[in-house]
């Protein structure tokens, strides 16, 4: 597991895994799209719009997961002085921002027919919007220092401060009365979603995760290369 913290090992590992990952992500995306667009039923209330879920939910999960990964790597980078942690932060933050943006846009596209409005200021939506702004500030903060070393360390500290938002997003639907529904799928109970809809959701989640990892690997390799050159 050394490839998770060592740039050279990571490069070797990524050279092996890159090709299969490309094929796997393409296959799973096509499979997921077929399942979510053709092989899953319409909702009896929401009709066709329920299919937005197959993009909305995976991107929301991955937006949270990306911030969690960034937080872990910031702790690793600051506590053990491993610079690979900062490489991960600067390479992965734009991916998380993209996932959050996809989640927000599909959410508002879903909200217009279902709730009758593009946007409401309820706890879940607000906290996810804050997550998006946090990602943007992380990206900008690193670029606003002439000295790269201090920039990435300060950014890591800001990531730690901003990670307070993660539990707030997770539990916002339970703590407040929100228009957004509470989680349908949790670890502790059986999912309150029909298997015919759960299947495409899981396939799409796998596809999104694979694409995210693929882009992340490419970005991290590029980041390692730029640091070697600079």
């Amino acid at each position, binding site marked *: 597991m050394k490839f998770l913290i060592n740039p050279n090992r990571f490069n070797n590992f990524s050279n092996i895994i890159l090709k299969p990952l490309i094929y796997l992500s393409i296959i799973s995306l096509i499979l997921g799209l077929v399942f979510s667009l053709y092989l899953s039923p319409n909702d009896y209330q929401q009709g066709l719009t329920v299919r937005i879920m197959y993009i909305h939910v995976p991107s929301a999960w991955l937006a949270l997961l990306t911030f969690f990964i960034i937080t872990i790597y910031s702790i690793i980078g600051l506590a053990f002085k491993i610079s690979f942690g900062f490489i991960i932060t600067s390479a992965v933050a734009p991916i998380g921002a993209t996932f959050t943006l996809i989640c927000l846009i599909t959410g508002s596209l879903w909200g217009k027919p279902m709730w009758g409005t593009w946007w409401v200021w309820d706890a879940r939506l607000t906290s996810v919007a804050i997550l998006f702004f946090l990602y943007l500030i992380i990206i900008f903060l690193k670029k606003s*220092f*002439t000295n790269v070393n201090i920039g990435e360390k300060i950014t890591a*500290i800001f990531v730690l401060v901003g990670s307070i938002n993660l539990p707030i997003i997770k539990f916002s639907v339970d703590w407040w009365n929100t228009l957004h529904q509470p989680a349908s799928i949790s670890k502790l109970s059986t999912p309150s979603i029909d298997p015919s809809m759960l299947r495409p959701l899981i396939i799409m989640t796998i596809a999104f995760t694979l694409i995210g990892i693929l882009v992340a690997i490419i970005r991290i390799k590029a980041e390692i290369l730029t640091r070697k050159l600079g």
Partner: protein
Amino acid sequence: MHTFNSIIALIIREFKINYRNFSDILSIFLFFLLGIVIFVFSIGENKEIFNEIGIGIIWTLILLSNNLSLRKFYQDDFNDNSIILFHISGLSYEIISLIKMIIIWIFIQLPFFIIIPLAVLLLNIETSNFHIIFLSFLIGSTIITCIASISGSMNLLNNKNFAIGSLIIMILSIPVIIFSVSLINVSDELIKAQLNILLGFMFFFLAITPWICAACIKLALQSK
């Protein structure tokens, strides 16, 4: 005893410096008052509108004027290296940032207790629960001072992007604004719960701020 003497010396020094540069601080309050005037002119003189949104305007302007205090925390001491002298005299960076926060709170937040009633008068807000406004400001201003201190210490070496410091303050103070503004309109049973949430935020930030500021100052000193 030695540490205690250095703490007293640092406090006296900060008081002197802030007293001598009082016009800087006065201009922050002038910003606040001018902001209120601008709001009145841009919305139009309508009593009922200001009754509803007046508290929100006051809080927004308090936040914006605190953005101006960002560089008053550590920047001057960092630039002329006196922060290293404080450290040599036996104070850890955590203590230094705590003292700075207290001094800045006294000089920048405390005068708002005089200015907020003036703003309430100017906006014609008719309110019966003045003590709630003050209480929420007492707690909220502490949190905003903590956040401004975090942002100020993060941007010590940042000479490219000046807006990012204000961005950090604004995004971290969103919960403060949410809970302190809603405190005014909330029903009596919920006031205590909302106050507890705000107090929780306050203690959380009071606990983490010195450590974050100290870490940022050390990082900045290393690569100066």
